């Protein structure tokens, strides 16, 4: 416990990550305070997903330091399951458990990890299903829901663990355009309520309206990090300018 600034819920210091000979993260440093909302953007293959996957150790970094909620994630991490249970994650492809109904998707981790009683877990699950506005789908299977609904369920599933921070890995990239807004709406609500969030996304409107900081990555490096006004109006780096011109032009 007690590494770095205690106000920081997440701290990355000079993190490197290799996939074979390919360096996915180059000397990445980032700190996230409680309640802070970070949007990470950048071209594909720039290391955005790898970055947030390292934060809950779905990928192991090769060097540097990652501290999550006071736990250092280096070497063999014994309490990794406990750390992960405090960090919610939403994936691009939803990853709902196909063999479980929606309500059971939401109840599984609280029952097994938090040892909640059945009724307790059910109440929590229904509370969050109502927050993402699909309580009526509780007894259906994931395959019976639309993509947007599935992603909202995935957000609710993460929230059921009452996480300190939420990681979003391109949550709207696999969605049909008409479903993107319903997911962004839920994420925006969450941000307004003060949830600490790191979102990898290309939704620049979302970044503009909720982010405290927008981080631009390219080639495994953090190229630029600024509050949205400065980031969008006065990007400093040439690569950021190029990226923004490409992504905002359509």
């Amino acid at each position: 416990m007690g590494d770095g600034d205690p106000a920081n819920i997440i701290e990355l210091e000079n993190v490197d990550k290799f996939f074979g000979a390919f360096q996915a993260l180059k000397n990445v440093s980032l700190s996230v305070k409680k309640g802070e909302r970070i949007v990470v953007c950048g071209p594909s293959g720039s290391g955005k997903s790898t970055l947030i996957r390292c934060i809950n150790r779905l990928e192991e970094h090769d060097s540097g330091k990652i501290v999550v909620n006071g736990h250092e994630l280096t070497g063999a991490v014994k309490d990794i399951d406990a750390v992960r249970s405090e960090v919610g994650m939403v994936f691009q492809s939803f990853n709902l458990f196909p063999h479980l109904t929606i309500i059971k998707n939401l109840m599984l981790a609280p029952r097994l990890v938090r040892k909640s009683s059945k009724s307790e877990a059910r109440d929590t699950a229904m509370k969050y299903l109502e927050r993402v506005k699909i309580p009526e789908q509780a007894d259906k299977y994931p395959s019976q829901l639309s993509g947007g609904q599935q992603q909202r369920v995935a957000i609710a599933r993460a929230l059921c663990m009452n996480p300190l921070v939420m990681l979003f890995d391109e949550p709207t990239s696999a969605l049909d355009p008409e479903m993107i807004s319903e997911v962004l709406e839920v994420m925006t609500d969450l941000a307004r309520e003060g949830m600490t969030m790191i979102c990898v996304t290309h939704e620049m409107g979302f970044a503009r309206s909720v982010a405290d900081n927008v981080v631009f990555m390219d080639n495994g490096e953090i190229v630029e990090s600024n509050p949205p006004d400065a980031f969008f109006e006065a990007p400093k780096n040439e690569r950021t300018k190029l990226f923004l011109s490409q992504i905002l032009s359509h």
Partner: protein
Amino acid sequence: MIFDTALILDSIPKMLFGIGLTFQLLFLSAALGLVLAIILLLMRISGRWYLSAPTMVYIYIFRGTPILVQIFIIYYGLPQLEFVRDSVFWPILREPFGCAILALTLNTGAYVSEILRGGVLGVDRGLKEAGAALGLSARHRFIYITTPIAIRLALPAYSNDVISLMKSTALASTITLLDMMGIARTIVAETYAPYEIFISLMIIYLALTWMIQRSFGWIEKRMSRYVRSEA
């Protein structure tokens, strides 16, 4: 030649006397084989070479040799070994029934463990990651996520193996057991009418296969109810 339909109708009930033994061979070796297959699977995917290497050798041997040879080695070969005759297993291994069960179990165990492994490997990595991200331990992920999905994925191939096993039980007749095949061979020896008798036998085996197929079809349908409505 004259095809004797009456002989078919006459011999089917006689062969059905052996169906009990066929069922015993099938269910007992299927059940024991499944247990063996799960143990082999866990060893194989343990990530420890000293557990996975022996299973690979085992699977190679039992998949790579005819089951008839395996039955003969167990029935004719093992009793030659003194320590087998002295062991607690001798009461089982001195009986042809025990030998047949052992051979069928060892054989199907090898196949089924590979079928189950296929199921486990087929589980979407993203689902396991979602479980991990929620803080589920590796054991919980295996029990609550991997296993149920792997079972559904493995089921069609597994039902094939049960049908195979059912047909393999006929080989037990080579070591004196009077299952349906054994009875058929006895009747043929008495009547000199192999054509009619073996056709009758085929009809019975086909009926059994149909029953196995239907049962597994029903189980598959039940287990896949969550994927049926996929848009």
